[in-house]
């Protein structure tokens, strides 16, 4: 769940976007969380159907939905459902945003295998990561300093964790910062006092996943939305999709597309 963009690709993107829209060209814009799925799926789809041209941009869910309403993109990626205020705006412009769920995003909270704790409440997790709790004894563990392990502040995982678990409060500044899910998992695996968060695909024997509010993270609990740190990811289209847009959305939802989503660390819908 990480996007790399440098000046050159940005310049290329800008050049491509400035070109007049041609038939069969799809512009996707929005959530950086959905972006890796969109990117991978677009590459695979363009390989399969050579006529199609898909441009993928980030920007955030709000930006993507605004572009869809303005008609400057064909598909809006969103890591949240559309808001009623956005629906009002869409109605004024005679647009009918239609949601297509493309995957589930679930984050497991992990600790060192030697940690005796079975689970934490979402509120305790929030207190730990925002700095209000700094010792395991406060949450029923041994007298040991808590080492919070977080992600770089621009990563999609960081953003998702902030929204789903921390109520958008700031992560404590003394948290160890790692560049990838794998980085977090390996630091937690080596550090007895550590707690971190990773995508569901990064669970292994070397770390221990905690129950959150009494619910264990798993494909089932994420897919049923019972597990608290999970959310659906959407692609929005204007009305019922047609032509290449329909082809692409169908591809994302197909077994092949869902496999790509799984490879990017999300929970596929089938």
């Amino acid at each position: 769940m990480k996007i790399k963009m440098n000046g050159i690709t940005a310049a290329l993107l800008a050049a491509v976007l400035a070109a007049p829209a041609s038939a069969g060209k799809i512009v996707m814009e929005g959530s950086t969380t959905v972006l890796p799925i969109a990117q991978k799926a677009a590459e695979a789809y363009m390989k399969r159907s050579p006529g199609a041209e898909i441009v993928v941009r980030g920007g955030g869910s709000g930006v993507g939905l605004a572009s869809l309403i303005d008609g400057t993109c064909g598909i809006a990626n969103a890591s949240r459902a559309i808001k009623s205020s956005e629906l009002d705006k869409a109605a004024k412009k005679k647009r009918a945003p239609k949601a297509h769920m493309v995957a589930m995003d679930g984050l497991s909270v992990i600790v060192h295998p030697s940690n005796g704790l079975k689970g934490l409440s979402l509120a305790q997790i929030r207190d730990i990561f925002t700095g209000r709790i700094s010792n395991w004894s406060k949450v029923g563990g041994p007298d040991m300093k808590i080492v919070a392990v977080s992600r770089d502040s621009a990563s999609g995982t960081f953003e998702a964790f902030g929204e789903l678990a921390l109520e958008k409060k700031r992560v404590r500044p003394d948290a160890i910062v790692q560049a990838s899910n794998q980085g977090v998992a390996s630091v937690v695996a080596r550090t007895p006092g550590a707690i971190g968060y990773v995508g569901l695909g990064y669970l292994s024997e070397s770390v221990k996943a905690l129950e959150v509010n009494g619910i264990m993270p798993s494909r089932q609990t994420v897919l049923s939305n019972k597990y608290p740190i999970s959310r659906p990811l959407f692609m929005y289209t204007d009305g019922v999709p047609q032509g290449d847009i329909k082809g692409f959305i169908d591809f994302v939802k197909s077994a092949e597309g869902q496999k790509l989503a799984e490879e990017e660390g999300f929970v596929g819908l089938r």
Partner: protein
Amino acid sequence: MRCRKEKLIRYGFTAAAFTALVFLVGIVAVLFTEALPLFRKVRVADFLFGRVWYPTGEPADFGILPLIAGSFWVTLGALLVCVPLGVGSALYLNELAGPKQKAVLKPAVEILAGVPSIVYGFFGMVVIAPLLQDLLGLPIGLCAFTASLILGLMATPTVASVAEDALGFVPRSFREASFALGADRWRTLTKVVIPAAGSGISTAIILGMSRAIGETMTVLMVAGGAAIIPASAFDPVRPMTSAIAAEMGEAPVGGEHYHALFAIALVLFLVTFVFNIAAELISRRFRLKLGHAR
């Protein structure tokens, strides 16, 4: 015919020589043009002395004091490692080692200088950090102390080879005069050779500092990455270089965060620029002192 050929070659070399200058000017120009837009929105004092770095918050905080503190903290720590090791090995190589030892040790030091920084970083992350964590009972091994240790090791070859050159420049006559006055080897070393090579050794140390403060990959991997002003050597830190490396890929091009990262790069550039000027000035004085002035 021949004259034309020589002219061509001459132009070729001239162009090559000026390439470095062109790149330097280009880099400086880009740093300024990309960094300055930030200061339309953030005051310079708030940027340099702000204590909170939270570039993706709403509103974002762009205080780089924790990053500056992180950089200087690990650099000073690295000096504590690389000065004794580097100067010590230079002294040994120059004064005590026999030709056979020198034939082994000198290339070894040079190879150490050629090890890629990611290898040091990996070594630090996988071997040193867990080791220190266990030995010292730290909550986590990824901290300023570990970063200092690895950076110090990395800077040691630089310090050792420049310092060794400086010692080599001390004329034989200085030593002979000292021995002739009845001074023993230790006295000659501490009272004559080291002071004579002093500014060369200072240059070596400053170059080592430059190397340590600009190092990126290693600190990214072992310093822990927390943007706090460290209260102890065992706190995690986020030096300027690692903040730039970790965040540049994901900062939206042209946004405030993007410009802030260039502004950090500018600060870093100015710091190393000052270091290099200092090194140059000192080494010039040193050449004059020993009569190597040109």
